[in-house]
């Protein structure tokens, strides 16, 4: 199994895809290959194929786009009158059209806002007689939520009685007094969406240069002329800054800044699907009266993933380090405590994973979407934190407004290819479909990941895709290898061996998540040999 023979047929195109030449010029350059960068690039390709996307990581979706809760919010949680709320409400409405043709699952599971006695501060509760409090919790708060949402253009909100709340979500605390159901909430896998958008853009001519860090910009006479990268320079009149937590630093490089990003970490616990499938069917959140002293974190809830795992979180902790994706003991405890109230019997022992992402808020806590008035041709798409995923379609629409002004043609291309063919997922097929695939290609019958039922054919497709998976996490995000209850114990060495074979590298060069993260440090006996030769020299 070691290393394995590289497949000559497959090797050439992969190399080319992994290390594409830096183009001399492009009509537009997008900095950052998260969900926003990839969505903007895909939209640009509807009008011109000549767009380049740069990212310093070795894959798309390596920042906040891989570590959020997959929720497409409705806007109900956002402050009235903010850009965020406006784009969120609009983005949510646009979602079906946004994902059309991408081969990515999007479903609207809805949000259940639960009102309990803990929804109001204790001093408020104590100042009222029982009838008043009941009236507040049962009638006034739900009515208030609905009025607030409707004013923002959120439709379909429904007030639920205690019985209806518990019927809808039987695992919710029996202390529930009432609730509001928001049918607009949706779920989409954020990294699969990002990968699909990137591939769709590539299909239509976009070039992705990964492992390529932006180090500066060429700005002449107040206009963008080029992007300077770790691998050379690209001449361009248009830059879209979608660099997530690094957007402030990127903007500064061009002299187009004026905002600061302060990283805020969010940790989430993920549960075994077999235990928690349907544990909650919609997203569930406890209502807390505005202005109430919050717990250390803001927002968060209990929700299923697209695949049906229960997730709890995220927390919200201000951090100094933009790379701080750790999860602390305090955060774990906080999640357990918080959800012990909302879902008293949640299956604590069925946690299979915990992850943490870093949000990119500005101090104003609103999105910064602007064509810079200091540097012509430089567009900032910054401060994109939750509900950035939900707002993405509307953000793209707004950005395109600027880009058309700045020279991207307004006429759609006739040769734009609207559909990205998606690789089927063995786990989701019925037995007849599975059997038919295996007859065509036996690798569909070779199960690599036994928890998530991922086949060799799917792993190969991920490695040979338009944005190739080049490490363990890249394969995992595309296929779900290692995402199940055994967390890669069974499939880890198999995936590493396939990567080594397909990339034509020794398995000791295979990494978990890019440079500096080797899975294996040596072959057996290597350390002993090194020791011996060391002694010899001494």
């Amino acid at each position, binding site marked *: 199994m070691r290393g394995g023979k590289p497949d000559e047929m497959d090797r050439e195109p992969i190399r080319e895809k992994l290390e594409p030449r830096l183009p001399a010029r492009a009509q537009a350059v997008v900095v950052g290959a998260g969900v926003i960068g990839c969505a903007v690039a895909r939209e640009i390709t509807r009008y011109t194929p000549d767009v380049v996307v740069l990212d310093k990581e070795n894959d798309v979706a390596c920042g906040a786009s891989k570590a959020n809760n997959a929720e497409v919010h409705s806007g109900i949680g956002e402050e009235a009158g903010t850009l965020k709320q406006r784009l969120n409400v609009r983005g949510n409405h646009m979602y079906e059209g946004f994902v059309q043709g991408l081969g990515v699952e999007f479903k609207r599971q809805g949000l259940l806002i639960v009102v309990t006695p803990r929804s109001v501060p204790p001093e408020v509760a104590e100042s009222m007689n029982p009838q008043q409090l009941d009236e507040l919790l049962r009638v006034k708060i739900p009515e208030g939520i609905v009025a607030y949402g409707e004013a923002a253009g959120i439709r379909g909100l429904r007030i639920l009685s205690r019985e209806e709340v518990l019927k809808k979500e039987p695992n919710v605390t029996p202390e529930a007094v009432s609730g509001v159901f928001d049918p607009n909430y949706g779920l989409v896998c954020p990294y699969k969406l990002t990968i699909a958008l990137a591939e769709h853009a590539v299909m239509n001519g976009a070039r992705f240069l990964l492992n390529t860090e932006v180090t500066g910009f060429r700005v002449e006479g107040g206009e963008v002329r080029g992007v300077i990268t770790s691998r050379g320079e690209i001449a361009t009149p248009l830059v879209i800054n979608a660099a997530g937590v690094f957007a402030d630093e990127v903007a500064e490089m061009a002299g187009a800044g004026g905002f600061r990003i302060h990283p805020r970490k969010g940790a989430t616990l993920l549960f075994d699907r077999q235990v928690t499938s349907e544990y909650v069917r919609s997203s569930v959140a406890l209502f807390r009266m505005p202005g109430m002293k919050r717990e250390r974190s803001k927002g968060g809830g209990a929700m299923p993933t697209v695949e049906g795992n229960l997730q709890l979180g995220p927390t919200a902790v201000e951090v100094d380090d933009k790379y701080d994706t750790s999860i602390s003991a305090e955060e774990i405890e906080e999640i357990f405590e918080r959800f012990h109230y909302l879902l008293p019997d949640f299956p604590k022992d069925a946690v299979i994973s915990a992850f943490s992402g870093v949000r990119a808020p500005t101090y104003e806590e609103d999105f910064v979407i602007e064509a810079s008035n200091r540097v012509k041709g430089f567009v900032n798409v910054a401060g994109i934190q939750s509900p950035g995923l939900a707002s993405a379609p509307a953000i793209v629409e707004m950005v395109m407004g600027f880009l058309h002004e700045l020279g991207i043609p307004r006429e759609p291309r006739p040769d734009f290819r609207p559909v990205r063919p998606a690789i089927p997922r063995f786990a989701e097929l019925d037995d007849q479909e599975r059997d038919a695939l295996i007859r065509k290609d036996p690798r569909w019958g070779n199960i690599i990941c036994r928890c998530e*039922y991922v086949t060799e054919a799917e792993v190969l497709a991920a490695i040979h895709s338009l944005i190739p998976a080049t490490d363990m996490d890249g394969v995992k995000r595309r296929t779900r290898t290692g995402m199940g209850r055994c967390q890669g114990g069974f499939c880890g060495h198999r995936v590493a061996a396939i990567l080594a074979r397909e990339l034509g590298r020794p398995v000791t060069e295979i990494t978990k998540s890019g440079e500096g993260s080797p899975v294996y440090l040596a072959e057996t006996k290597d350390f002993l040999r090194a020791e011996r030769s060391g002694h010899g020299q001494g």
Partner: protein
Amino acid sequence: MVRVRRPDLVVIGAGPAGLGAALAACDAGLKDVMLIERDVELGGILPQCIHDGFGSIVFGETLTGPQYAQRYIDRLEKSDVEVKLNTMVLDLRPDRSLTAVNSRDGVMEIRPKAVILAMGCRERTRHQILIPGYRPAGVVCAGAAQRDINIEGLMPGRRVVILGSGDIGLIMARRFTLEGAEVEGVYEIMDHPGGLTRNLVQCLHDYDIPLHLSHTVTFIHGRKRVEAVTVSRVDENLKPVPGTERLVPCDTLVLSVGLIPENELSKRAGISLDPATGGPVVDERMETSVEGIFACGNVMNVFDLVDYVTHTAETAGRSAAEYVLQGIRKRGECLRVRPGRNVKFVVPQLLRGYGEEAHFYFRVSRPERAVRARLSSGDLLLAERKIRMVRPPEMVRLKADPERLKEALARGELDVQVVPEEETKGRQG
């Protein structure tokens, strides 16, 4: 088209349990036995267990894992058992039908007369015990690391910290050391070691590897690859004590923090599981709550010795054959075996009384010196063993004869307990 197969018996898993069960079923006269294994070779975990210590009860000599497996593989090759390697069972239903898949046969719908569950166990992972910190490369379970080194020929680490003093953790401490890696220490959250005494001596003591009891890892450092771990002392409630943190530089954290019986298929088939063992509730013939589905080995509970796995497998294989050939059906009378003083759990959990001898396996909750392990029904003693020292990692087996089991069934009670030696003396005196 999906193919339909109708063998007499399907055994799921070809580790020591599956091998033993399939052969025992053949020996008992079953002709059409299918053995399904999802890995590329037979033997389950045994091929990677290149240390010795296997088989002292079954063969009266100590073998390595591959040798132990080979004895069964040799017999299997001479048998009529149909072996399906690289084959994954996707579903098992309460009517005993299964769906399995591989590259050669495609999707198979299998409708056997009986099924034996021999899926073994899997390792508990880092997130199941919620170790805080980053998620870098270099956090591996001990069994996976053992496979990497012994089968794949790859070193998952060079400067190693091991969390958990279960047997695989101890064995890997030695294995890493022999490969020229540095094992900084083994940390155990409990105040007593998790592994067998012989492994403590042969794997840690002989190599001067320190064992830190009442300690755990409280943070994993390193964004890309493990750079260090923080270890902390824990109090009597197993909570880390603030102020006791120590930073231990390393590139690898090996976890030996428990094994979980693999019962995803059992759950799909609607089989009752015992929360104490994590495995199916079985009777003395290893039959589960679903008629015609039997279980054996680590799918029932995690055994300490492969010899016991083989014993349960042989019982399950023979019982499944009798079920198919003689139509022996589950008896209605049924007695639950009660775990008594210092007994964590007992398997089998149920006694039905088929007029055969039966073995009961149990684990203690806490270490204890100079005791007697007893299987009794009121004042009737069915089995007793004097033991110098009982420890939670080491299972105890008691054998009872058919006559007394019948009597216990009539009395309607059966208890397993561990009693201090003095107490038994006192009572006798």
